[in-house]
């Protein structure tokens, strides 16, 4: 062997080499992650998904109430659904805490800089509005004494649920975007918007399915399908644009096995296929239910992609050296 042999090339620490190399080829520290992986698992994925449907349903109520009773069944279902989901959310959230018995520590502060704090208060506000709305709905439906309806006047609950609902559907996207995880930060213009679309679409799907299951208000079902179609296509467009703009940073989400899963479960199965089904001119119940199931599944898969790809992105030191501005 020659004396000129470059020991660095042979060394296992070859990765450390090259301070002089170009700006984007970084030396890494034994390929070790720079950032820490988020510790979030299925609970957080589920919450992002559920919160999206709850928020989307909140928006739908106001829309449904615009039509002078044509979509009353939808409004009613959506009120109950948003309450149910708003009630389930804290349970899931508390479950994911490292110290669940201290969940109420979230209530010590209101912190505008922290999307999670904002989200907690948003969820509380949404729950308050939703429970009043649902109570009033129950009064109207004769399930509880009628006078209780005054607790949830629609002039108050509808805009409240719509606005806070929109926030609820979107802030989860803000929450993950406003981190150091390169993929998420890179997606700050896409992830929140995609979350809103996906949440809204999923809310449409969930409500359409509920109506279909109870076999009522087929007009409302058609409207929901139309809105869902638009939301889905918007989501698709946003995700494709995200993929384009993220470049290499998008790899954990869009490439490899996880990319294939995203394509199959969300882009094709959760958006394109439901869209095709929606535009078919005939409307059997099973189709509505199947379309909704596909959309919902796609929505869940999207959240799972976000979280899991975020973890992989955290593991990539090169992505973290020069963090997305």
């Amino acid at each position, binding site marked *: 062997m020659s004396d*000129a*042999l*470059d*020991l660095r090339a042979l*060394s296992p620490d070859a990765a450390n080499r090259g*301070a002089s190399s170009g700006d984007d080829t*970084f*030396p*890494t520290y*034994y390929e*070790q*992650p*720079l*950032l*820490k992986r*988020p*510790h*979030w698992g299925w609970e957080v994925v589920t919450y992002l998904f559920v919160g999206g449907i709850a928020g989307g349903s909140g*928006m739908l109520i106001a*829309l449904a109430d*615009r039509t002078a009773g044509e*979509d009353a069944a939808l409004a009613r279902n959506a009120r109950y659904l948003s309450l149910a989901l708003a009630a389930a959310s804290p349970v899931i959230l508390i479950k*994911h*805490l*490292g110290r669940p018995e*201290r*969940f109420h*520590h*979230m209530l*010590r*502060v209101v*912190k505008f800089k*922290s*999307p*999670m704090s904002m989200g*907690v208060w948003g969820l509380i506000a949404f729950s308050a509005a939703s429970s009043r709305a649902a109570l009033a709905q129950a009064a109207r439906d004769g399930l509880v004494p009628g006078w209780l309806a005054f607790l949830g006047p629609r002039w108050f609950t509808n805009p409240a649920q719509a606005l806070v609902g*929109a926030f609820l*559907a979107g802030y989860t996207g*803000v929450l*993950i*975007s406003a*981190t*150091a*995880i390169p993929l*998420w*930060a890179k997606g*700050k*213009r896409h992830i929140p*918007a995609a*979350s*809103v679309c996906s949440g809204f679409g999923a809310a449409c799907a969930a409500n359409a399915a509920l109506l279909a299951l109870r076999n009522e208000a087929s007009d409302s079902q058609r*409207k929901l399908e139309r*809105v869902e179609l638009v939301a889905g296509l918007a989501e698709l467009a*946003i995700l494709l644009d995200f993929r384009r703009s993220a470049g290499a940073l998008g790899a954990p989400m869009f490439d490899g096995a996880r990319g294939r899963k995203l394509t199959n479960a969300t882009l094709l199965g959760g958006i394109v296929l439901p869209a095709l089904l929606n535009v078919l001119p005939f409307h059997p119940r099973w189709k509505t239910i199947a379309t909704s199931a596909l959309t919902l599944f796609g929505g869940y898969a999207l959240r799972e992609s976000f979280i899991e790809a*975020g973890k992989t992105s955290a593991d990539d030191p090169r992505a*973290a*050296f*020069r*963090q*997305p501005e």
Partner: protein
Amino acid sequence: MATGFFTDTTLCIGCKACEVACKQWNQLPADGYAFSGNSYDNTMALGGTTWRHVAFVEQPAPLDAPPSESKWLMVSDVCKHCTHAGCLEACPTGAIVRNEFDSVYVQPDVCNGCGYCVPSCPFGVIDMIEHADYTRPSFPSDGRTDDDALQRHGGVAGKCTLCYDRQKVGFTPACAKACPTDSIEFGEVEELKARARTRVATLRARGVDARLYGIDEDNSIGDLNAFFLLTDRPATYNLPERPVLPSTHQPAAYGSAALAALALGAIGCLVFRASAP
């Protein structure tokens, strides 16, 4: 008064006394006994129960170059106690506070383990402390109660406290105290900065490619109360070349969400119209 660290890597001999002193003072458990094969670094990174970490970067000279050109860089990494701290901004419980020493401090009895600070640190510092049976610590107890151990060790976020407890009684942080070569200098931040600038000038005059990391930089984090003197680019030491404060992403993120909601609301309004009377 803001206190902090000036870590001068040109003085570090990689003895890891800081790492051990930190674990001992804070009664943090060992993280396992795995051999990494990565130079002399077997703990590999900061974490929930490793609040100082000494990194070893080998840059051996090629055989045809003088042996003295070989380099073995060492740096003792720690929480940066950022002026604008991602972890602090993110924390929804207010567990993370800025204390009277201007350090970013996690109150272990307030943290509820939401985990949001973890991806919010641009330096990958803070991490969750796994649940474990710390009632029987893997190390000889120094007499602290089990409650205390549990308080500190179960399911909460952990990182350097800048030895808040020691500072309160006028002690130097354990790591700085243990550092034999003063690679870790503890003190009043402004004073440290002045010293650091002089030191860089001295080293440059001697032909050392010295640079400061974490102060006098134009980024969203602002100055770091724990800053460094490096002799290679930051990435070499597993430090971000350009850290970004996560909350700076919020306007765009909220904006895009709002835009999407408005657009969908508008579409919804178009669709949900009372049929013509």
